[in-house]
């Protein structure tokens, strides 16, 4: 290994270490950002509506894997894109890292990876919370490894989409980012409904197929609740890997364009 590669690897870990350090210090606000929304969704749709009799028994079971998927994908996306938009704005805080002795591409990968780690962490937190809130879950535990694989891939895709969005959105547009990007992603990701049962609503089913989150939700739900109609696991896997490659490449391209004049 050449000296430059070695120092690049060292720099990569140092840059990742900086993000871990900063997150560690901001833990309470990070937890709030990560947990309030899915816990509220789970509570209203899984608990309140169920007890009032507006949802069928068992809906909460369908919802929980979807909420875990949602957290893995969306938290990764938000935690990559928002800081990036700010980093590239007037503060130019990221410059110190762009001037560190490692390829700019690696800095992009680090941003993505770190966002994915936060997404993964947020998704993992949903397991105990869901169990606690819903009391009993009837999961097929043999599907757990595949569900975890989908969750990991979901975080990675979230990171790559976050990199793409964060590097493409100019700082003054950050406030419309939520309305035009995040909200649609939340509701077209099959996390609140099984995608395979949408055949009565064909156009919506097609729309959902363009959202990577759909494949995370379907993959996880299919693995944990095999009795619920679901997408074939290999389709989910392929779609997630494909999305990873496409958005990863796109994100790095946009990042390079923003990082270098």
């Amino acid at each position, binding site marked *: 290994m050449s000296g430059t590669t070695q120092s690049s690897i060292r720099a990569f870990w140092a840059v990742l270490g900086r993000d871990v350090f900063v997150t560690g210090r901001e833990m309470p606000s990070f937890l709030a950002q990560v947990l309030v929304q899915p816990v509220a969704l789970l509570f209203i749709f899984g608990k309140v509506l169920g007890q009032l009799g507006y949802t069928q028994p068992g809906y909460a079971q369908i919802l929980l894997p979807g909420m875990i998927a949602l957290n893995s994908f969306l938290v990764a996306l938000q935690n990559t894109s928002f800081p990036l938009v700010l980093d590239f704005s007037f503060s*130019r*805080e990221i410059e*110190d890292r762009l001037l560190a*002795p490692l390829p700019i591409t690696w800095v992009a990968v680090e941003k993505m990876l770190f966002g994915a780690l936060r997404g993964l962490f947020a998704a993992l937190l949903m397991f105990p919370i869901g169990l606690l809130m819903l009391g009993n879950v009837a999961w097929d535990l043999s599907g757990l490894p595949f569900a975890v694989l989908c969750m990991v891939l979901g975080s990675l895709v979230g990171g790559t989409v976050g990199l793409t969005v964060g590097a493409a959105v100019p700082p003054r547009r950050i406030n419309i980012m939520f309305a035009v990007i995040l909200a649609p992603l939340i509701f077209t990701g099959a996390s609140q409904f099984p995608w395979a049962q949408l055949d009565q609503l064909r156009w919506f089913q097609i729309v959902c197929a363009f959202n990577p989150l759909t494949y995370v939700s379907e993959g996880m739900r299919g693995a944990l609740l095999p009795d619920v109609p679901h997408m074939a696991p290999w389709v989910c896997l392929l779609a997630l890997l494909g999305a990873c490659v496409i958005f990863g490449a796109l994100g790095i391209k946009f990042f390079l364009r923003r990082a270098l004049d």
Partner: protein
Amino acid sequence: MARRVAGEHHRGHNRDDEFLPGGRVTAAVEVADLVKHYPKSTHNAVDGLSFRVERGEIFGLLGPNGAGKTTTVGILTTRIVLTAGTATIGGVDVARDPVAARSKVAVVPQRVNLDRSLNARQNLLFHASYHGIGRSERRALATRLMERMGLADKSKARIDDLSGGQAQRLMIARALIHRPEVLFLDEPSTGLDPQARLFVHDRVNDLRSEGVTVVLTTHDMEEAEKLSDRVGVVDHGRMLTVDTPTALIRSLPGSGTIDARVRPNGFDSEKVTGLLSDIPGVQRVETPGGSDAPEEAAPETELRLYVDCEPGSLLGPVAAKLHDNDITVSDLSLGSASLEDVFIELTGRDLR
């Protein structure tokens, strides 16, 4: 001002890799025919720039707003991708091997870009860790640099709580912590008070004695003249001239000056200017204070005569001419042109 001789530049820097096969010493910075064209721009921001900075030298890049100084620094620090030409740092091509180049350079940018999520000391520590400096070493270095930059009591300060001058000093400390071969200072003293400016100047002079190569950009002539071994004047992305400040001033036509303070006694200042311009040896006459003040308010006018011979020999003729016209002289003194005169002579008076 005393200038160092070239031989001194290489003190403590005699590693083998500094010599090219031809026996020529590798320059700290070498820029050849550099061109930068920003997308969607009508002209080149840098347009065929060439210069060379020797090791240990302090080089001033001087030029009006928009001349391309920051762009040049950006290219040399790998933040901006060049369009054509070559730029090397200690023999490393910044376009071909930016990662290696980044470990050789450090930059104090024109605008604050400190990491706001970290406090002052952490900014130094993490920067050092990006550059692979071990934990105990970077702690010791951070402490030493904070002290040296007069920031010892600010180590826990948040970035937003630092004054402009403190942020500037912290950026210099951050730049120095990974022991760069070449330090780029983009307008190091803009926005600083005189104390802070002097402090920064002293630190730059410290670097000189440590053998660090410094490239600084500025439009403060006094600063360029005071700090730089050599100065390059840039305009419209081109190098107009490179030389020591003394040589540049000497090369200026009409480089000697005579300053006169006169009471025109009814003459308008244009008339006086005309009279003095007729004296053989006087190149041109200017009113540095500006002649637009009403005569009544400013009964005395200050004039600066640019002469192309030994200014002392013209004192007599000037005094005689003024006396003959009943113009009262209250002060007559010899001056010499400054770098500002060179700058204006080369780049003109137009606003950018």
